[in-house]
């Protein structure tokens, strides 16, 4: 807040001051006051007005400057009223009070939504566990049914993977920490995913090659298995008709990190789509022309990776291959120095 702006804002005040002075002049001249007295009264009148305006300016300047700088520096701007000092003038007090009340009301509002989404998340977790029971018994039934059951089993596994999507989407969006980081052998995590998808992989005659999966990384095993399952299901969706499907899973490690490559020889991703594949609801060309896509799979993968502290990236040549790379940091702080 500078003086110019303040004066401009108080034009009316200054204007009235001058009008009053002029009418006083008229009055003084009519009654033949001596010029000394007129000068003296004018000086007193104007210095009084100047002091009034200046004091008003500095009182407000302090408050509004503080408000501005707080607004600029605050990370969470809705906490504004908490950091302001109590202003010395009425307007300021009213503003501060209003800010406080509106912030509080907004907090309550946000809180009710937060609670809503927490409740919903809890409900989803519970629902997923419940719905898994009939799926589990149906899978057993289809297995016990022998030859006939196989095709039902296939559909049931699809249902199960969709259920997992819901579960992990809700987990990835939640602020709650429901994972634990511990050493996970990549070979084991990948093995579980491979075995889970065995029927489909064999049906499509996919050759699965693994290399250097003896590495141990710090992650949540269940989440990692879900991530790998997503990558696997993407690969299976977008295989090329022109060649024998192949998935090559291998690691490369440096002093600081281990990179897990999940590479298939499918139809690849066009370079126009590549930067956006991890975006929410982004389907791209493949999603439109090939298998129906929700654009959620890789988004969930990315948010889970971010929450676990891994990075995920993609390389692809359209028509040749897609390589999704997950990089795990080697945790130095866990090692004795």
């Amino acid at each position, binding site marked *: 807040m500078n003086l110019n702006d303040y004066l401009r804002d108080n034009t009316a005040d200054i204007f009235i001051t001058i009008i009053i002075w002029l009418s006083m002049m008229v009055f003084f001249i009519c009654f033949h006051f001596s010029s000394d007295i007129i000068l003296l009264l004018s000086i007193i009148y104007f210095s009084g007005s100047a002091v009034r305006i200046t004091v008003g300016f500095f009182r407000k300047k302090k408050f509004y400057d503080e408000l501005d700088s707080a607004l600029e520096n605050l990370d969470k701007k809705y906490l504004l009223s908490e950091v302001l000092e109590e202003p010395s003038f009425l307007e300021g007090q009213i503003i501060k009070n209003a800010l406080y009340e509106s912030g509080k009301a907004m907090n309550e509002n946000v809180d009710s939504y937060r609670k809503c989404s927490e409740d919903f998340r809890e409900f989803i977790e519970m629902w*997923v*566990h419940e719905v898994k029971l009939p799926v589990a018994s149906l899978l057993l*039934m289809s297995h016990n049914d022998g030859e006939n059951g196989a095709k039902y089993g296939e559909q049931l596994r699809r249902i*199960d993977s969709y259920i997992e999507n819901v579960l992990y989407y809700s987990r990835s969006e939640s602020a709650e920490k429901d994972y634990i980081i511990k050493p996970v052998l990549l070979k084991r995590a990948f093995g579980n995913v491979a075995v889970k998808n065995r029927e489909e992989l064999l049906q499509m005659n996919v050759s699965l090659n693994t290399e250097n999966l003896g590495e141990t990384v710090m992650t949540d*095993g269940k989440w990692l298995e879900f991530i790998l399952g997503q990558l696997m299901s993407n690969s299976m969706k977008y295989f090329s008709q022109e060649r024998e499907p192949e998935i090559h899973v291998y690691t490369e490690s440096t002093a600081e990190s281990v990179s897990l490559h999940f590479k298939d020889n499918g139809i690849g991703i066009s370079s126009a789509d590549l930067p956006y594949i991890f975006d929410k609801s982004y389907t791209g060309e493949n999603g439109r022309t090939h298998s129906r896509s929700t654009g959620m799979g890789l988004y969930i993968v990315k948010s889970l990776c971010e929450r676990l502290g891994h990075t995920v990236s993609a390389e692809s040549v359209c028509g040749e291959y897609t390589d999704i790379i997950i990089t795990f940091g080697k945790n130095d702080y866990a090692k004795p120095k």
Partner: protein
Amino acid sequence: MHRITIAEDDKAIRNELSELLKNAGYDTFCITDFSDSLNQILSADSDLILLDINLPHMNGEQLLMEIRRKSDIPVIMVTSRTTEIDEVMSMSYGADDYITKPYNPTILLLRISAILKRSSKEKVCTSYHGFKLNSAKGCLSDDKTEITLTKNELIIFQQLLDKQGEIVTRDELMTALWDNEEYINDNALTVNISRLRGKLADSGIEDAIETRKKQGYILK
């Protein structure tokens, strides 16, 4: 015959699980009244327990802790809870394995037989027609000859030998191979079987592995 206790409160799963295990040649005991599950489990005198976590009255984790106080009978936690935390907790309470629902039935059977093999201390079947199976060296040998087996052939042979005289399905063989990180396809399995057959024939055991169309293989 091994006896397996099933502690699972979902009736449909319990019945199907029991049928699955019976078909696989196990005797089963199902707990239906959970008000006194601990005593029932302990007095059932079984060789293995399949334990759900979400049970009425006393949940699976508590039961597991109580069981571990009195017995070291193998326990596999079978549950729809899918967090790593649940798994770590269960393992720390002394579970031998942890499988999440919905599970692949073949894998469940494989894990059960692996755990029973480990715990029952009965000698793992390692001899066949005078040959001794040496898994560590990966070969079958008698006094004169030694047949070297690849890792795949060894896994296949071990599966067939464990159930000698019974049908082993291709699905079971595949599951065992994939469970050991050997991700081979159908053709490769056929090739591996015929190679194994050839190696056995070379050492004088003709027609050791019989093919049952649409069912599987039998080791004679």
